[in-house]
């Protein structure tokens, strides 16, 4: 039991459900606190009774077992007392269930459509005309209305410190409300087993002060800047049309799966929207830091870096990788 106390104090547990950082996670945590206290009390009493009975009545020469078959009053009491305790738990539980299920209202509520895909997250800020991936940016201090949509297989959206879990079921739309108290980065993960890289389907929620969030929104709404140097321009060309050499030509180009606003022809919808790729801290299911070496390794062989990745190994040459990395890094 000391372990529970320990874990609640430690600061290096970024996914702990015991350290809620938002209204909706706190409501669940409040219920947990009550339940856990009752459970511990019941545990101590019942386990104590069991151990006491075993040691008090262990066999000694001369001890005779009392021959009784039951005790009706006691048995009725043993049925009613747990039932009452549970009833006591049921009332706040049901109240919180309905509380959490209520859709947040108001003009300033931000609606985001969240789609879980093998193995990354797509976010569509329906009112703001922003599409991004894996890193969800939200303002602090206000409820965020997430509409959770299915795509290929079941996933489950979960940011433990900010709120509960919502399964992603293909063909269904569900809701989840999140709220963050303070600015910061909150880790989350896909929770429903979804295939080879289920473990690699992470996500982050980045909460900003409302003012910073406004800034982020207006940055995101800008189309991508035109490539600044020739290497980046070559990368952009490669991105849309693929390379002229044998392996890449005629096959898929980056743009068949990825979109970049402002780059003609890059309108793919299968992979993440890369318009502001360089502004993201992580990529590929939020498992890699977004830096040059990780990006190079990724482009060289995605399925090796992330098993089961839908992005195939395109057999890129070092030169092609140079150009693509240069271009991607301009996408601030």
């Amino acid at each position, binding site marked *: 039991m000391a372990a529970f106390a320990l*874990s609640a104090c430690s600061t*290096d*547990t*970024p*996914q*702990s*459900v*015991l350290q809620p950082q938002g209204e909706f996670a706190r409501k*669940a*945590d409040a*219920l*947990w606190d009550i*339940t856990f206290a009752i459970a511990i009390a019941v545990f101590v009493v*019942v*386990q104590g*009774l*069991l151990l006491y009975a*075993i040691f008090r*009545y*262990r*066999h000694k020469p001369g001890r005779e*077992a*009392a*021959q*009784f*078959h039951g*005790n009706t009053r006691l*048995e009725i009491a*043993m049925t009613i007392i*747990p039932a009452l305790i*549970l009833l006591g*738990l*049921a009332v706040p*539980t*049901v109240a919180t269930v309905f509380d*959490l299920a209520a859709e947040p209202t108001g003009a300033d509520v931000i609606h985001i459509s969240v789609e879980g895909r093998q193995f990354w997250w797509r976010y569509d800020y329906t009112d703001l005309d922003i599409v991004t991936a894996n890193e969800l940016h939200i303002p602090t201090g206000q409820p965020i209305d997430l509409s*959770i949509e*299915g795509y*290929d297989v*079941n996933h*489950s959206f979960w940011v*433990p410190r900010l709120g*509960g*879990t*919502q*399964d992603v*079921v*293909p*063909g*269904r739309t*569900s809701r989840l409300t999140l709220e963050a108290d303070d600015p910061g980065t909150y*880790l989350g*993960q896909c*929770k*429903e*087993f979804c295939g*080879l*890289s289920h*473990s690699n389907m992470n996500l982050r929620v980045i909460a900003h002060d409302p003012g910073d969030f406004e800034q982020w929104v207006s940055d995101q709404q800008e189309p991508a800047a035109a490539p600044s140097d020739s290497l980046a321009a070559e990368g952009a060309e490669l991105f849309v049309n693929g390379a002229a050499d044998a392996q890449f030509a005629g096959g898929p180009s980056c743009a068949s799966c990825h979109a970049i606003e402002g780059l003609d022809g890059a309108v793919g919808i299968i992979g993440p929207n890369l318009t502001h790729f360089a502004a993201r801290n992580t990529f590929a299911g939020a498992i890699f830091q977004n830096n040059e070496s990780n990006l190079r390794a990724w482009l060289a062989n995605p399925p090796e870096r992330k098993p*089961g990745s839908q992005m195939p190994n395109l057999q890129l040459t070092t030169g092609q990788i140079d150009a693509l990395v240069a271009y991607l890094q301009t996408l601030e």
Partner: protein
Amino acid sequence: MATAVAPQQGGLFARPTAKTGWWSWMTTVDHKKIGILYGVTAFFFFIVGGVEALLIRAQLATPNGEVLSPAVYNQLFTMHGLTMIFFVVIPMGTALMNFLLPLMIGARDVAFPRLNAFSYWVFLSAGLFMYSAFLLGGAPDGGWFGYAPLSLDPVTDGMTYYSLGLQIAGIASLAGAINFIVTIINMRAPGMTLMRMPVFVWMTLITSFLLLFAVPVIGVALWELMFDRLFGANFFDPAAGADPLLWQHLFWLFGHPEVYIMILPAMGIVSEVLPAFSRKPLFGYPAIVFSGAAIAFMGWGVWAHHMFAAGLGPVANSAFALSTMFIAVPTGVKIFNWIGTIWGGSVRLTTPFLFSAGFVSMFIIGGLSGVTHSIVPHDAQQTDTYYVVGHLHYVLFGGSIFGLFSGIYYWWPKVFGRLLSEKIGKFHFLLMLVGFNLTFMPFHILGLLGMPRRQYYFPANRGFEVWNLLASIGAFTIAVSILVFLYNVAVSRKKGEAAGADPWDARTLEWMTTSPPPEHNFDAIPVVRHRDDFWYRKYITTPEGESARVFAGGAASDEEQHSSEAASDEPPSSSAEGASDREPNTAGAAPPESSSEERPHAGASAEEQGHGIHLPSPSYFPLLTAAGMPVIGYGFIYSPILLAAGAVMLLVGAFGWVLEPPAEEA
């Protein structure tokens, strides 16, 4: 089915007659031999599933583990779950039921001996079929829960093996369940009313009903999955407008009763073991029985609590939260009754008792963590994390496996005639208890720290390292404890103490006959006058409420180390002989005199009673019929020719079954 015909000698449908040797095991219809087969097979799968668990724990001992590839990891955790549930816990319970059920109700065999053999062979076929997938391109890798549409993924045949293999295992369970239900309803000894039945028999009955009603539901889900995978049907494909939640509903409609299918037999075992070693009747027998039935019944109304995060809406979630909470009431009743059973007793801390006490103790934890799941808003945090894995292992390992080991230690002398060593047994218990808690207590913490389950690695710097390492150490401790058990078995086989008919001074009918029991179980079917009838043949209750041993001379004594003749009129003087009020753990106890006693030949003693005891002859056909099933399974995957071959085996087996003579002159 097979009715009176003039016995035909020889020919196509002659029945085998071997009583010993491996062929006798292949063709046996004796519930005791089938029980042993079940037990050995289930234990084999226990080792296999355990090795899978060890591989998983090796991978997860350190962050970013690289022992297993993700593809292999996914197969291993899937097969670990499937193995432990379908090929260990359920059949291990079935093993004990098979061996004990007829003995406990005073019957010569189950109602349908050949169907019983058939169940075993089908179960074995299902296990081998599932495991053959490892060699034939990849085992199931979609989790034991097989959520669609991921389970429709056509990359390997793994989930096709899942859909067919579980289907076959389901046939075994269904046949077994029907057999046990009929046996319990119809084959009880005279005077064995329902409320005089041992609780283990009650729990068998309730479990069988759960299987009877739950297996067809998963059967349908598996058929639908199979049609989707093999024949392009659209039961779960969202692209065709189908709803993958249907799979989840059907799966958990079966899956939740399944949990009780696994725990109720263990509860039955505990309800036998605790009274025997407390030397007291079970406290609140009716309450234990009815709470068992209530758990089973309520177990049908809670399935959607596995789907709290699936988006069923607040009304459904609240309703299922309430039903889930209140299933804790009958469970609590059982725990209080077990404590009441120990209360006021004279408790002998034998290995079976310790395992039963361990069951109750661990089950309290598992039950309480179960209640925390019903708190829907917090369940949304716990679900699919290691917290759930911790909970389910407290129920299924701390619960079922501890209960089953209690039963194994308790009935081992009845099955094999020799006791297991108490000293080694207690060491086994301690090691397993420590290892178990070391493994699964950290799981709760990991879950609360936010580690999702079914992850083939965990990243560093999230606070998971210590707890994972502890859990892995615990897992290997459990493995060592199993080796200790195997050593105990080996020692017992060589130089185990001879058990005699009644080594524990126990209460129920199976201890009236020799250990191991003769093929026909009882020379004469006992007439039952009490609950715990055997006890009341040995003891009377004094007016002060204490028990006193009934001697031939009428004197009562609580001294140990004596043997006495049971005060019974039926069978006259013979069966209860050798019942000795002896603690096997008090070293140096003299072996009971009954161990060397020769029993009269079965036929001879029966002739004396004027009735021939006709036991059914062995049969080839259960094995043949059962063997057809995996062939059909391969046929679905690989070739219509195999399909036809399997169907022919099935048909020939069925016709042979019907047409073979009822018995062969030995």
